């Protein structure tokens, strides 16, 4: 168990590509930290650098107060779970789990008892003498976990350990990993591209994009106070809606009506010298069917044509389109669209999704009134992607 400290960690590949730039991060003793971002954001490279599987171009990496930049993976005392599980196919489950201890020259009886203890925790006892080829996906995944926990290492590094499982099993394993980490209290760095995993598992989440850390914080903090357009769009499911807005006097003109600006937001806009054309972010949760909102609650009611209504049982999602969306598309928005696959659907216009109470009577294809909680808006500068309503920018 140990603290992992990254100071100005940078990775430049021989071909000149900059994979990770100047990452500063402290993973506390026993903390569960998630690195999340779309593919190619440098999260796996960062993990590999912590493991020692990739050289660090620049910066210092300390594990347990020791600089380990030039140490081989075997001297770092860390365990890693791979996306592919990387089980040794010629060894039984028992041999797989005991391999690291065998290399460390631990005596046979200790290995046996440790492996059996880990197998008991992971419910693998009956499979101990089988080969990986004869196990199901979920069992293989557990063996990979077992291989990490028998060693009682300073830290666990997990590289998308659940992405090869089917959806149902993934949810089960997610809670199991969470329980296991709490029980063992081992420092864990976990890489995923799935924001749901990031939100549910981590003590803290690190959002990365193009090799740069965008924001670090607890899942709730990232959800409530995203620092920029990218974090806002990446965290949360369904993703935050981005609408075009024009600043006039003290109001923002948008397709969901005119939104008056609070004094501190206005000051922030002035300080940042914001342009007249802005991007407004509203989470699907900020919307509701006006018929179901307390009459006294402040907010805007607007009317639109609902294209699609999806009922999930617990919620209803309604979709409408912002027709006159000007593609002020910043690179962040483009990347978010690519990541969510939205750019592949070829939809015209700009889709807005709202989450409604199941009691709603809104029907597909009809003109409908919608209510939006305007106190929950985020305002972004389209030039920089900075969230102007972030509490640090409000001077609050």
């Amino acid at each position: 168990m140990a603290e992992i400290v990254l100071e100005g960690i940078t990775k430049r590949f021989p071909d000149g590509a900059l994979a990770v730039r100047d990452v500063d991060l402290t993973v506390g003793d026993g903390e569960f930290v998630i690195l999340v971002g779309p593919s190619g954001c440098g999260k796996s490279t960062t993990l590999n650098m912590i493991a020692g599987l990739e050289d660090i171009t620049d910066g210092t990496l300390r594990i347990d107060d020791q600089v380990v930049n030039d140490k081989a993976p075997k001297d770092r005392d860390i365990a890693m779970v791979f996306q592919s599980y990387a089980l040794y196919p010629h060894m039984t489950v028992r041999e797989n789990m005991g391999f690291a201890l065998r290399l460390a020259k631990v005596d046979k009886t200790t290995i046996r008892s440790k492996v059996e203890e880990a197998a008991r925790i992971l419910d693998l006892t009956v499979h101990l003498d089988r080969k990986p080829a004869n196990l199901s996906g979920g069992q293989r995944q557990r063996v990979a976990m077992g291989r990490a926990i028998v060693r009682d290492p300073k830290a666990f590094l997990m590289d998308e350990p659940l992405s090869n499982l089917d959806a149902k099993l993934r949810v089960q394993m997610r809670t199991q990993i969470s329980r296991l980490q709490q029980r063992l209290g081992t420092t864990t760095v976990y890489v995923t591209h799935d924001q749901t995993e990031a939100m549910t598992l981590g003590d803290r989440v690190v959002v990365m994009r193009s090799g740069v850390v965008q924001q670090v914080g607890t899942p709730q903090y990232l959800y409530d106070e995203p620092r920029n357009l990218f974090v806002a769009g990446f965290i949360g499911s369904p993703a935050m809606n981005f609408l075009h807005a024009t600043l006039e006097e003290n109001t923002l003109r948008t397709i969901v009506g005119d939104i008056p600006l609070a004094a501190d937001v206005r000051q922030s806009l002035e300080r940042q010298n914001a342009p007249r054309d802005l991007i407004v972010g509203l989470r699907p949760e900020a919307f509701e069917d006006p018929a179901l909102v307390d009459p006294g609650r402040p907010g805007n009611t607007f009317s639109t044509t609902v294209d699609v209504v999806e009922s999930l049982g617990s919620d209803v999602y309604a979709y409408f389109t912002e027709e006159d969306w000007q593609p002020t598309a910043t690179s962040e928005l483009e990347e978010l669209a690519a990541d969510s696959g939205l750019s592949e659907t070829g939809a015209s216009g700009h889709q807005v999704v709202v989450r409604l109470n199941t009691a709603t009577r809104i029907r597909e294809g009809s003109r409908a009134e919608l209510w939006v909680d305007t106190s929950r808006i985020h305002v972004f500068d389209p030039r920089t992607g900075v969230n102007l309503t972030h509490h640090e920018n409000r001077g609050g």
Partner: protein
Amino acid sequence: MAGAGERHLTGWALTNTVVIAYALFPVWWIAALSFKDPSTLTDGNFVPEKWTLENYRGIFETSEFTRALINSIGIALIATVIAVVLGTMAAYAVARLRFPGKKVLIGMSLLIAMFPPISLVSPLFNIERILGIFDTWPGLIIPYMTFSLPLAIYTLSAFFREIPWDLEKAAKVDGATPAQAFRLVIAPLAAPGVFTTAILVFIFCWNDFLFAISLTSTTRARTVPAAIAFFTGSSQFQQPTGSIAAAAVVITIPIIVFVLLFQRRIVAGLTSGAVKG
């Protein structure tokens, strides 16, 4: 449905029988010849009327054949070992590393594999005479290695590419040195490839006639395929058919033993289960 399945099965059995019979017919023919008495050698029967071991006794009587057998075994084994060891290292590098000149290396080895050996015989003959290795074991081992290395590199690099790289990373994180990772994880998984390659290379060296006849002149390094060509009958009017047949049967035995010994190791799909899929 059961009837259709059965018919399907019978069809397969019939096809297999025909193919096997077609392949084994010449083998049977030469084996039958080798057991025939000289007087019945040309009687046209496929089953010897009088069984005899005379032909076998004959070829082992003089040192001509036994000496050639020792040469064959020695030369083929040494060439195989060197080619497989070098080939394993080269193939691992080709499959796993990025280094300058990799494409050139692959291209060169392909070029060598494609080169018609017959065109090299005269230059090799002269070179080996100048170097003083003509009619020696190294004189055959070196060209055999040259021609079997590309084969070894190609086959083995295909095997190495099949082994997921993650396994090596996992071994490293588990505390293995690069040597341990290779010995305990990569080598056991590459074993089927190594054995397959070894068999292919061995058969190539064992069967070669061209180099063996051109680069040897005495029994010092003459291998069996070449030595058989020098067999003589008991008189100049007699064809050494029986001896040749017996020798042909004898030199097939090591190959059969070699394959039988290692066939259990040549199981494809040993890596299944390492990663999802």
